[in-house]
């Protein structure tokens, strides 16, 4: 209870800080909106050349895009700021986290909230709704269930991805570019039909960094498609397992990072 009060107080102040300068906040929102739209346009440009990509038409890809963008943006809003860790390490402010009776990761996660991601969530929602309207949905109940599952556990998968990347930052204090490859790269992979990738990437994004679970597999269920050999549609129902695996990986990487910091010093 007390922890929630503290989190609310910090968040309220972060929200106030971000919205104090209205023009700047407006531009932040607009920027995030444009990034989302440009990515959507990219997909649309591809479909101006082809009719089907990886077994999905434009309507299907809209679903993949919508789901992955909503999940990524919510994760970014909630925990994306863990990528500030290198700055905290360089400035030594991370030491302050060690002096408080909460887990360091919990403190880092609750230290900020990135409101400018809101518009990007909006783009994702629009794409998802458009995708649902554009397609014939054979079994609406199944579709609703898998979409609910995807939104919850897909967000969790991306949160875990952010934390994994932050865990690596304890070693690579200036390695943000490298770890961005996993977070933003993972997000990009999740917004594409995984079937377009070669076998190696299919396995990577299916089972190591389970990006396929966020958008592609649930979309197959929604559309009633069987899916390719390596990634059958029924795998979508294992979303909680994929999320658990991501969280486990994130936990291990983060723990190792914290240990490394305690061993190497500020």
């Amino acid at each position, binding site marked *: 209870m*007390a*922890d929630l*009060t*503290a989190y609310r*107080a*910090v968040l309220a*102040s972060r929200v106030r*800080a971000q919205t104090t300068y209205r023009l700047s906040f407006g531009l932040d929102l607009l920027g995030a909106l444009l990034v989302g739209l440009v990515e959507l346009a990219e997909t649309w440009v591809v479909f101006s050349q082809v009719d089907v990509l990886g077994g999905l038409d434009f309507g299907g890809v809209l679903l993949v895009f919508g789901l992955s963008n909503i999940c990524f943006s919510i994760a970014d809003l909630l925990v994306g700021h863990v990528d500030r860790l290198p700055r905290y390490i360089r*400035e*030594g*402010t991370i*030491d*302050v986290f*060690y*002096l*408080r*009776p*909460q*887990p360091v990761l919990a403190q880092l996660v609750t230290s900020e909230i990135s409101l400018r991601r809101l518009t990007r969530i909006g783009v994702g929602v629009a794409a998802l709704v458009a995708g649902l309207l554009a397609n014939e949905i054979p079994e609406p109940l199944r579709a609703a269930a898998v979409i609910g599952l995807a939104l919850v556990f897909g967000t969790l998968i991306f949160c875990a991805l952010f934390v994994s990347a932050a865990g690596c930052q304890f070693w690579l204090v200036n390695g943000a570019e490298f770890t961005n490859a996993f977070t933003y790269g993972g997000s990009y992979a999740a917004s594409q039909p995984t079937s377009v990738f070669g076998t190696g990437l299919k396995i990577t994004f299916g089972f190591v960094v389970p990006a396929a679970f966020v958008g592609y597999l649930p979309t197959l269920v929604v559309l009633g498609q069987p899916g390719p050999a390596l990634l059958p549609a029924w795998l979508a129902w294992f979303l909680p397992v994929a999320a658990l695996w991501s969280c486990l990986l994130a936990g291990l990487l983060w723990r190792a990072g914290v*240990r490394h910091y*305690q*061993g*190497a*010093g*500020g």
Partner: protein
Amino acid sequence: MTVPSGAVVEVDRLVREFTVREPVPGRRLRRRARRVRAVDEMTFAVGPGEAVGYIGANGAGKSTTIKMLAGILVPTAGSVRTCGLEPIRDRRALSRRIGVVFGQRSQLWWDLPLSESFAILGAIHRLEPDALASRRAELVEELELVEFWSTPVRQLSLGQRMRAEVAAALLHRPELVVLDEPTIGLDVLSKQRLREFLVHERRTRGTTLLLTTHDMGDVERLCERVLVVDHGRLAYDGTLSGLGATVAAERILVVDLAEPVADLQVPGTRHLGSEGEGVRQRLAFDPATTTAAAVLAAVQTRAEVRDLSVAEPDVEDVVRRLWARNRAVGAGGRPGSA
């Protein structure tokens, strides 16, 4: 030094090494790893209610020791116990019982006023509303925080911010307070206030105090025991007066005179130098044998004094002299402790 049972801090042959990578001469891309000992077989204990000054030059290993006490760094060898706990393993339990102030690192929220920061800290430490309110009122009064209670932290002066930092670290009534350079960069008045508060806090609550500082004034007014660390080793452990006896802690009086005067020769002082053909002169004296006022009075019989300042000896100076003395005595690897 005997320490009462149930020591608050127990450090036993504590060692901390760091790996430093340095370029190999003549080979641009090769780097060689070298192990450096920041803390070298340190052993000491601090009993409940003690006030200990932990002093030494930059890079002597002070902050490294503190980080091991607080559970931020893992020791390379040896053991450390703080409040009877093992700092790394019991970090979260320990954080409820110690308060740490890093002079250079803020634990306040940059754009929040103290009123909100303290509410958050109260929640972080899970203080009961009544306990929080009474403690907060105490700290606000004693550290005189009320005039800037609703000002965002970023707008506070350094002196105000340090007082707020100390209050923040002491909000949960820790039994051990560790201060790393608490008065660095503060003006005389702010220093004075902070020291008075810490003395009061110790007297009323029996808080154990461990502070690192470069300011001998801090040590003199706050600590009854001094640990001098040099190159990661304990160079002295004893009372401040004992340290003063081993290395006379001189003060320096700097006077600006109305007109150039020949080098002043005042009994009980040493003339250190003159500038501007004698307009500014520096005199060293031992506060145990004379006072700044007596020296000043003696100067005024010979020349008109326009301005003056008294410099307290630097910790580095004391440590340097301590080492020189130890070497002269031929104490060998481990200098004497009182």
